[in-house]
């Protein structure tokens, strides 16, 4: 189906999927980690000034 150079075509699509997938996964995991750390600090009562004071 992909002819005599099929391995080159498959390698291109495979590497691209792997690298872009890793980038997307890294972005998602990085976002989760930062938001979790931010949530932990806010739960301890540390908040940004513009976020107002925590409820008593």
């Amino acid at each position: 189906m992909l002819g005599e150079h099929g391995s080159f075509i498959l390698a291109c699509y495979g590497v691209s999927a792997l690298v872009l997938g890793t980038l997307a996964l890294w972005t998602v995991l990085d976002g989760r980690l930062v938001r979790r750390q931010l949530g932990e600090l806010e739960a301890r009562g540390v908040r940004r000034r513009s976020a107002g004071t925590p409820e008593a």
Partner: protein
Amino acid sequence: MALMDLANPTRFLALSGRVLPWLTALALATLAVGFFLAFRAPSDYQQGETVKIMYIHVPFAWLAMFGYSLMALSALGILVWRHPLADVAHKAMAPIGAVFAFLCLVTGSLWGRPMWGTYWVWDARLTSMLVLLLLYLGLLALRSAIEDPNQAGRAAAVLSLVGFVNVPIVKFSVDWWNTLHQPASVFRMDGPTIHSSLLWPLMICAVGFTLLMLALHMAAMRNEIYRRRLRVLEARAAAEAAYA
């Protein structure tokens, strides 16, 4: 509401939180359609089935340049208006642009071996694209080498503006020098030279990858805004602990 008011980190988080899932879904759907059409498209009369590499290689090349151009625009925002969201956009694009430039080089190399008989030649197009990748990597290294984020942002902005001179060199290298790489065949003054049966899948794949890059950039910008808030809160927590 002024445009600058919209470019506020809090408003950006609210707006991007609503847009991002739809943008991601649209990108994946467009890419699915693009790949479906690409694998149903006829093979090239000279390159045979290897033309299928074009549907990813060409968008990667365009987007590597597009990403850098967005960084150069953001650099103006940093240096002229000192806008925090411009710095966030600039920083978030660097790893994404580097990935697209890297994939352009890898897929081009894998396409070159069966068509040219070599993975690499030091011709103007390939070399200028390698320089673009090195610029992206240099910007990443520069940011991580300077501790003060404001100083790092300004230094990276200056470097990215200086490096922007390479973008037209990448684009016109095939016209200015005698290269093994073929000349432009889509964006030409006299119109595309690719048959529409190959051009349409290519354009749909290009739109899909553009939407994917924008979605990744939006997500990375959100992460960077949260990271900056985290840094502020950590400093505040440390200060409170020192007073206690």
